[in-house]
């Protein structure tokens, strides 16, 4: 397939959203790592100069991917998967330890984490397996094999001591759900997490009153009360017991210091000295941005290194401080549009492989997005995973870009599939 052919068939909307996120990332890193003596964005001694180089490498790689035959990744999915499993095993034995996690491979000046590659290859492998003509997802065996494909790399990553990255693999639940797995587990888990957070943040009574109101509303919408009354009462009782249980556990069972830790992590309590120092700095940086932000390069908190890891995992602080609420809203909506576009494209695929692969990568990206921002704003414990396309870092940017370009290629090729 020639270049002209590609240009005509590629989804420019998704590509533009991707490029927009890259631009936001570069600008934020420039602001976060700004050095008065090296204001040139091309300066390779500075992190923004390096990031620009990484962007160039990523785009070039993406271009190459667009030229490769579309079937290539489907065909060799297991090979790539096997390679990343091998690398995961390899780092377990002789990896380089960076930031307490033995998960890096040093290739000259370039260091990269096999776990990042594994996210991509697992998406390929799962898509390949479920996309085969003879695979029937309604069978238990299929589900087990698919789960196994996910659990293998996940366990290896966990063994490296990188809990954050291991959690990423859980998002394949979302893919399985799309492919027909019962939604009950997904919904129950989601509702439980939301209720848990609400109970800790607000009084249990507010939560119970809220749940009651919703229950009554749902009852009327469903109608046919006689038939459903027992189910409704049952679910309602379970929820109330859960809320009271969480509340009791939090206030009575946890020791004060454990409670404090959670309080600080959740941002309910301020502790500027110890546990929540980093988190508080991050919150203060974002909070001080206000509605419109302090302006480009005016973010004193981030510029003067108040926020730890600010150009990598805490890059969102810079956006919050310098862009304010308006800035973060634009960035979040950009992301949401990006994710929804991937879902829309995935749904129009004729190939099951392409669809499942699309869901796989959008789930991975969304998980990174949620966890990274949630930890930055104190909704989750601090888990060191990057914000896709925005955080400084070559290997993560390259892998995320490869994910997108492989999907773009599949999409451009969708009409060639019967």
């Amino acid at each position, binding site marked *: 397939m020639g270049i002209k052919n590609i240009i005509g068939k590629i989804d420019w909307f998704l590509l533009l959203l991707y490029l927009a996120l890259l631009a936001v990332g570069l600008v934020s890193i420039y602001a976060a790592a700004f050095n008065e003596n090296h204001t040139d964005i091309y300066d390779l001694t500075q992190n923004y100069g390096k990031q620009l180089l990484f962007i160039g490498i990523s785009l070039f790689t993406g271009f190459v991917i667009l030229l490769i035959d579309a079937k290539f990744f489907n065909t060799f999915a297991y090979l790539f998967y096997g390679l990343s499993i091998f690398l995961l095993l390899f780092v377990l034995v002789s990896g380089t330890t960076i930031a307490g996690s033995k998960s890096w491979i040093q290739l000259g000046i370039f260091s990269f984490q096999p776990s990042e590659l594994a996210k991509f290859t697992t998406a390929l492998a799962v898509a390949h397996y479920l996309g085969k003509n003879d695979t029937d997802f309604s069978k238990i065996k299929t589900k087990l094999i698919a789960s196994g494909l996910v659990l293998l790399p996940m366990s290896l990553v966990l063994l490296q001591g990188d809990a954050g990255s291991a959690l990423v693999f859980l998002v394949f639940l979302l893919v399985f759900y799309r492919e027909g797995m019962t939604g009950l587990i997904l919904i129950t888990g989601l509702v439980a997490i939301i209720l848990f957070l609400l109970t800790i943040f607000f009084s249990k009574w507010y939560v119970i009153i809220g749940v009651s109101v919703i229950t009554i509303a749902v009852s009327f919408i469903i109608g046919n009360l006689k038939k459903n009354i027992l189910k409704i009462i049952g679910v309602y009782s379970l929820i109330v017991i859960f809320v009271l249980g969480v509340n009791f556990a939090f206030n009575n069972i946890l020791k004060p210091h454990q409670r404090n830790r959670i309080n600080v992590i959740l941002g309910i309590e301020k502790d500027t000295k110890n546990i929540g120092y980093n988190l508080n700095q991050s919150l203060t940086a974002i909070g001080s941005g206000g509605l419109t932000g302090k302006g480009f390069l005016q973010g004193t908190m981030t510029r003067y290194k*108040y926020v730890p890891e600010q150009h990598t995992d805490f890059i969102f602080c810079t956006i919050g401080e310098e862009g*304010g609420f308006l800035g973060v809203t634009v960035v979040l909506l950009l992301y949401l549009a990006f994710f929804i576009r991937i879902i829309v494209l995935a749904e129009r695929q004729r190939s099951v492989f392409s669809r499942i692969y699309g869901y796989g990568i959008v789930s991975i990206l969304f998980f990174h997005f949620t966890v990274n921002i949630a930890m930055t*704003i104190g909704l989750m414990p601090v888990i060191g995973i990057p914000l896709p396309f925005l955080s400084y870092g070559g290997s993560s940017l390259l892998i995320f870009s490869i994910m997108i370009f492989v999907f773009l290629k599949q999409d451009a090729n969708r009409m060639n599939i019967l």
Partner: protein
Amino acid sequence: MIRKNPNYSSRQYVVIGIFSIITTILLARLFYIQIISEDYKKDNTVRHTTLYPSRGRIIDRNGKVLVYNDAIYDLMVVPRAVKKIDTVSFCNLLNIDKDTYINELKKARRYSSFKPSVFISQLTKEEYGKIAAVLYKYPGFYFQIRSIRSYNYPIAAHTVGNIGEVSRQDLENDSYYSIGDFIGKSGIESYYEKELRGKKGVRLIVVDVHNREKESFMDGRYDTLPVAGKDIILGLDADLQQYGEYLMNNKSGSIVAIEPSTGEVLAMISAPTYNPTDLVGRKRSNSYQRLLDDSLRPLINRAVNGTYPPGSTFKTINALIGLQSKAVNTTTKYICNGPDSSPIKCTHYHHSPVGLIDGLENSCNPYFWNVYQDMLNSYRFKNVKQGYQFWYDLVLQFGLGTSFKTDIASNSPGNIPDTNYFNKLYRGVWNAMTVRSLSIGQGELLVTPLQLANMAAAIGNEGFYYPPHYIKRFEDGSMNDSIYHKVTIDIDKAYFKNVKEGMRNVFEGNRGTARFYRIDSITVAGKTGTAENPHGLDHSIIMAFAPIDNPRIAIAVIVENAGFGSSWAAPIASLMIEKYIKGYVTRPEIEERVVKFEDIK
């Protein structure tokens, strides 16, 4: 390949829904942090550096600077910024041992590793000069300049007072102060604190997380410059004060000198005193404890808080009120039987009968008892109590029995008993005889040296005075002593002239009790006294003013446990008057005797 399970494609909306809800939750949280909550607004990258103003100086009436400011240097440390340094040479430089270095650094780190703490406080200019030159080698350390008080003359400790670090109470009362600030603790320093302290300035500096100063915040838009404190000019005469302290050497007691035409305090000595320099800087707390423990209680300002029976000096007042009551006049004479007199004996031998002038000259007790008795029993009053009230009201007009509401902080009111006091004490039954001690300045009467000096000023002025005060004015003219208004006493001027005549004879008369302390070319008027002291030797007292016609100085001297007023208080008053009016002293033998203070018994 054909789509399988097309029936699940509606689940895309569930996934989109989940994505949207979570994004909305994140946005809601951000809205809370950035717009609603106030908790995260504080921008802790801006350091507020206080700029301390220089404190107002204290200057005497002739322009001599008594108290000024000197810089001291605190060596500060920011533990986090401290790098690996050559501790040996650093300790040598600071003249400390390695343990001290380690301990101080530990202490600072315990307070905060990224906020500055004092490492060594109050270094001198010389030490500062030596260290500052090489301090660049030791990152994390820097100097902070503070000003402390310095004294050109180590005098008038009680009057100027001292400054010290703010107490918890001060911090609660006035939000101007922060921990470690200095505040006036006593005397002028305390009373004029608000004027002397000036106004702190602030500089907002953006600092990075390593506490390095980067730039001024918003181009200094919110910075304010410190406003220097105002210089205060006192009525005090430094030379006279110094001379008075010299004369009171190794005695207990007090001298207060006032300018009668203004009420300005020319000198105020409380002996024993202390060196104000001792209460400055690092030695402050040690010195303070030592002074507190001293059995002679040097911290007490006897001039305003010591109360003594006025003794015979009070006879002047009784003469004035007696005349004003019309119970007696200048020609009234009474018989004195010397030591055989009753109910009060005379302590002097003199001719009899005596009138006003020789009664004062000889300090004749029987004369004043008779005046007092005839006044209280005068037919002009319904009864003794009304007569007593008449006397009481006029005594209070002299500034006795109440404190002066001036910048002389917490001066004691002394004691003048009122009719209620005696009604209670004697269950309503009392007469002139009962309160006879008051006629000669004893009994329940108590006055401070300050009140006594003011009394002298009022008599010298022939019926008025300005409440005694320290301030002359502030150098910038923002305040002067015109806030203190003239107080007029309801006694005819003529009677003052009569009493002054008697007081002149105390010095100028052949039998005057202070006749040995006349001064050439200056006519002094005064009255000596001996205050009965139940705890030991009597106190020697005098009040005087000079020159008699247009007095420039009114003075009171009390020497505790020194016996007759004529023997110690009188020569001191005489020397002080000469020193003030002439500027020098012509009688070295008297001065020598006073300073030695030997033949006391």
